[in-house]
């Protein structure tokens, strides 16, 4: 993080804490403004966990309301966004436990230990796929499905870091793990995404040399 970013984030934290003090002092409607910048991340986090829009929307609303009702418990030790994301993650986990029991968590815990030997999708050439390609439904679907196929532990970190742009420390704090764990999970998530997606996305790139194939 650059010095400028550090200063900007510190200032934002101070501003938000002042806003929180006013909300707790009785200006309740200010809470709408406080959460407005974080609507997207709250939705993305629970959507990445639950996998469908209706459940994600309901979970996101519940998380925001939980944050409102528990605002007096926010201690300012972390940024408000970190605290809010933690609430969203908990809401997502609670719903997963109800629908899928705890299996997914335990399977994920195992997969973190035993990734085994890794081989990427073996390409000999990669031509840049521009972001405009995301206008195509099938490209967005390829990405969404690849994210969905990741074990939950890796999926969460990938969405926080690469999709929502949370920094290493904020991601680690939200997940109650060390930054080293975040780095390892992000690394594995990105490798899995490359292995899964590169062969699928390659066809959307400008015409070039072929792919060696071989990964299944």
């Amino acid at each position, binding site marked *: 993080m650059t010095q400028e970013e550090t200063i900007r984030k510190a200032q934002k934290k101070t501003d938000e804490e002042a806003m929180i003090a006013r909300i707790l002092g009785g200006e309740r409607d200010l809470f709408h403004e406080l959460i407005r910048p974080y609507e997207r991340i709250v939705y993305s986090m629970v959507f990445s966990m639950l996998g469908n829009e209706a459940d994600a929307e309901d979970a996101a609303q519940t998380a925001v309301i939980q944050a409102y009702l528990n605002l007096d418990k926010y201690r300012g030790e972390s940024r408000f966004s970190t605290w809010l994301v933690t609430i969203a993650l908990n809401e997502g986990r609670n719903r997963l436990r109800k629908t899928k029991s705890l299996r997914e968590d335990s399977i994920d815990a195992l997969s973190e230990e035993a990734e085994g030997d890794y081989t990427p999708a073996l390409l000999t050439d990669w031509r840049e796929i521009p972001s405009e390609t995301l206008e195509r439904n099938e490209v967005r679907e390829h990405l969404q499905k690849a994210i969905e196929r990741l074990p939950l532990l890796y999926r969460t970190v*990938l969405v926080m870091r690469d999709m929502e742009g949370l920094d290493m420390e904020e991601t680690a704090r939200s997940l109650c793990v060390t930054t080293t764990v975040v780095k390892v999970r992000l690394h594995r998530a990105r490798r899995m995404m490359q292995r899964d997606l590169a062969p699928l996305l390659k066809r959307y790139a400008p015409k070039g040399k072929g792919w060696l194939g071989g990964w299944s």
Partner: protein
Amino acid sequence: MKIDCKHVWDHISSYIDGEIDQELRQEIDRHLQHCSICSATIDSTRNIVVLMADERVYEIPAGFSKRLHTRLDEVIRSESLDRT
């Protein structure tokens, strides 16, 4: 230090984020000059990371924000009533 493909694959993420020491980065760069597979692996991973950051990957449902604030408003109003 001479590195092989597997060594490069072990550092893809930190290489992309610029979080490896200079010596290792130079070794990887040297390897990439003659290894088209590792070059394509790093380029494709970096490309996917860039695509992931685009808001079109997860689109927020239409009207999401409005419905969220309406529901929140109901909670705020009912709480205010409880206090009176």
